[in-house]
C-alpha cells in the first residue's frame, strides 16, 4: 500500500467512524471492500529483465529466478529472487549460504549431467530437485546442498506468500475496515457438516 492509499484508508475510517454524531461507527460495506481491493491491488514485485542483482552474479541471479519459479509457480513475478538478493546483500551469513549453494549446485549438475543447472534439461533439473526436496531421496552425495535447498524453499515460500499473488492464492480477504464483524453462515455449516458434531444439529 502506498502512502496515498493508506492515507485514504484512514480518511475513510476517520470520517465514517470517528466523526459520526451518534458516536456509533458506521462504515459502508462498499467502502470497506473498496479499501481492501485498493490495498491488495499492487503491481508485480519483480525487477524485470534489467534488474541488476546486488549480491549475486547475473548467472546466479538467473539460476535463482528459475529455481524460485520451480519451487512456487508465480514466485518470480512475486519478486522472490529480488527478495533473496536484497537480503543477501545486507547479511553476510545469508550471502554465504546462497553463494556457496549456487556453486555447489552447478558443480554437482556439471559433474552429473555435463551442464550447469540453468542449461540442463528440465528433466535433469527436476531430478536434482527431487533428490533435495524429499528427505527419503537425500543420498549422501547431495548432503552438501540440503541447507541451500531448505533456505531457498523457505525464502521463496516467504516471498511468494507475502506478495499480492500469494495473498490471493491462499485467499486471505482481510486487512480491510468494516463497521461490524460477521461470520458467513455457509462457512459454519460447511465445517460443522464435516466435523464430529455433524449429527448434533
Amino acid at each position, binding site marked *: *500500500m*502506498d502512502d496515498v492509499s493508506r492515507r485514504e484508508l*484512514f480518511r475513510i*475510517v*476517520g470520517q465514517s*467512524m*470517528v466523526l459520526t454524531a451518534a458516536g*456509533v*461507527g458506521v*462504515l459502508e460495506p462498499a467502502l470497506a471492500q473498496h479499501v*481492501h481491493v485498493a490495498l491488495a491491488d*499492487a503491481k508485480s514485485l519483480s525487477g524485470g529483465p534489467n534488474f541488476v542483482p546486488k549480491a549475486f552474479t547475473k548467472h546466479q541471479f538467473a539460476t535463482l529466478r528459475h529455481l524460485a519459479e*520451480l*519451487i*512456487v*509457480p508465480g514466485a518470480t513475478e512475486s*519478486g522472490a529472487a529480488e*527478495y533473496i538478493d*536484497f*537480503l543477501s546483500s*545486507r*547479511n553476510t*551469513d*545469508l550471502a554465504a549460504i546462497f553463494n556457496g549453494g549456487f556453486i555447489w549446485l552447478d558443480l554437482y549438475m556439471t559433474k552429473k549431467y555435463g551442464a550447469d543447472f540453468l542449461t540442463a534439461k528440465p528433466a535433469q533439473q527436476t531430478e536434482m*530437485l527431487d533428490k533435495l*526436496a*524429499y528427505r527419503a531421496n537425500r543420498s549422501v552425495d547431495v548432503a552438501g546442498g540440503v541447507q541451500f535447498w531448505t533456505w531457498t*524453499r*523457505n525464502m521463496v*515460500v*516467504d*516471498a511468494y506468500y*507475502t506478495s*499480492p499473488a500469494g*495473498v490471493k*492464492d*491462499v*485467499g*486471505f*480477504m*482481510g486487512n*480491510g*475496515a*468494516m*463497521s*461490524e*464483524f*460477521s*461470520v*458467513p453462515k*455457509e*462457512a*459454519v455449516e*460447511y*465445517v*460443522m457438516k*464435516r*466435523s*464430529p*458434531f455433524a449429527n448434533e444439529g
Partner: protein
Amino acid sequence: MFQVQRSPEIHDVVVIGSGAGGGTTVKVLTEKGVKVTLIEAGPMLNPNKDFKEHMWPWEVDHRGVGPNAENYFGKDIYPFGYFLAPNGYWNIPGEPFTVAEGSEFKWFRSRITGGRTNHYGRISLRFADYDFKPYSFDGLGTDWPITYDEMAPWYDKAEDFIGITGTREGIRSAPDGKFLPPIPPRVHEQLVMRAGKKLNIPVIPSRMAMLTKSIHGRAACHYCGQCGRGCRTASAFTSSQAMIFPAMKTGNLSIINNAMARELLVDDNGRVKAVSYIDKTTKTEKQIRCRAVVVAASACESARLLLNSKSTKFPNGIANGSGQVGRNLTDTVGYSLGGNVPALEGMMRHNSDGIGGMHVYVPWWELDKKNKDFPRGYHIEISGGYGMPQIGSFRGVAAKAEGYGSRLKDAIRQSYGAQVSFAGRGEMIPNEHSFCEIDPTVVDQWGIPVLKFSFRWSEYEVKMVQHMHRTFTDLIQAMGGTPNAKPFPQNASAVSVGGEIIHEAGTVKMGSDPKTSVLNKYSQAHEVRNLTVVDAAPFNGNPDKNVTLTIVANAWRSAEHLADEMKKGEV
C-alpha cells in the same frame, strides 16, 4: 565537568513510567487538577508515524523479516515481528540484565510513551475473590490486604473507561464486569465451543480491551485484527492514546522523555524529596524535586529503582525494611499446543480478522474439583482463522509437505486456516527461588546497577502444564483434529521460560504487616508515605488473569487515595 542539574521548582507528583499504571495515575491526577511530571525512559509515541497498522508485507523490501534478515537468524530486534507496535525488546543494547547460574529468565522491556500497552494482548480479566485471598483459599502464597469487594468498584471504573467486550456468565473464577457487546465467534471458535460442550469445558465470549462500540470519543473497532500493530483510531486500548494524550491537553501534565530513573533521593525524615534520572540525550544526571512520587516502571524495573535507592536511612534500598523488594517474582505459566483440523479444510474464504486475538476463551473450570495435583488454575486462549500471510507462516507446512511446485502450493492452500491452537495461561505460586536483586558487578550504559534474576518453576507448574497438554489434546481430538507432534511435558523445561509470557509481578508486594510487605493497601510504602508503586509489583499473587486490568484498577484506587491525602496535606 560533570554537573548535576537540580530544578529549584517542587513538582506535585512525579510519575515514573507511562504504561498501564503510570498512564492511569496521570489520567486520574491531572483530571483532579494535580500537576504531574511524567518520566519515560523512551521517546514520545507518534501513532501516525510509528504504527504499522494496515501495512502489507510487500510494502517493505524485507517483507517483515528485518532490513538485515534479522529474524531469520534469531536476532530479536523485532521480537514479535517487524509490524508490531513499537517498541519493546527482550534485549536492549547497553541495558543488560544478568541471570543467576542454574536459572533462566527473559525480560521484555518497552521504552516508549505508553510502554507495553501499545502492543499488549488486551485480554482483560478481573481477579476473582479467592485471587485476593490465596493463602486463605488453599494455604499457599499470601493474602492481599484488600478484598475483591473493595476492588470491584475500581474494576467498574477501569472497565467503563477502557471499554471491554464480554458477557455476564456468573462464573466464580471469572467475575463479570461492565462489558461492551461481545464479538461473534469465528468458525474455528464455534467448533471449539462444540468441543468444549462435549468435554464439559466452558467456552465463553472473550473479554478484550477493544471497542465494539464507540466510547469516550474513541472510534469503534474497524475489525482489521491488527491491534498488536497499534491502532491509529485508538479503538484498542493503550495508555498512551487513551490516557496520556488526553492528559496532555489538561495543561497539568509535563512529560520528560528519554529519561531513565536512577534513584529516589530522601530527606532527613526519610521521605522522597527528589527523583534522580539520566537524561539519555545529554547523558547527564538531572534531579527533580517533588511532593510525591509514583513508581510504575514495570514490576522488575520498579524493584530495581527501589533497591538502587540506598541511603543512610535505607541501606538496603528505599522502603525495604522488610527485605521483600525484589522477592516473590512470578510470571504466568505458559504452554501451547496446536493441531490440524480437517473439518476446516476447503472452507469458503472470508474475512476472519475481527478483533486482534480470540473472540472466545476458556475460563478456569475446575475450581471445585477435588484431588487435583496442582493448585489454582489456568485459562485457555484460542487462535486460528485466516491470518494475513507473513514471513514464516507456511514454513511448517512446507517442511511437512516436502516437494515443490503446484503440489507444495496445494498443500499450503489446504492447510491455510485449518490450524487451531490453544495456549494455557496459568497461575504460578510464588516461591523462594524466584526473585530479582541488584547485580553488584554490572552497570548499564547509564551507569545504573542492573538486575540479576533467579527463577525456578516448581512441581505445581509442571503438573499444571501436563494438565494443559491433556486438555488441549482432548479439545483438538474432539474437533476431529490431529495435535501437532509435541512430547508430553515431563519437567520444568516444558514450561515457558520465566518472563516469557511478560506478566511479571509481585516484586514490591503490598500487605498489612510492614515486617513482611513493602506497601500498604493503597500501594504506598509503609516506610515512605509519599512513595507509591502501581504496576504489577504490588501484587500478592499472579492469578491466571492477565495483569493489566488489575494494574489499572489498583492504580486508579491508589491515585484517588493519593489525591485525597495531598488535599488533606498528609502527603
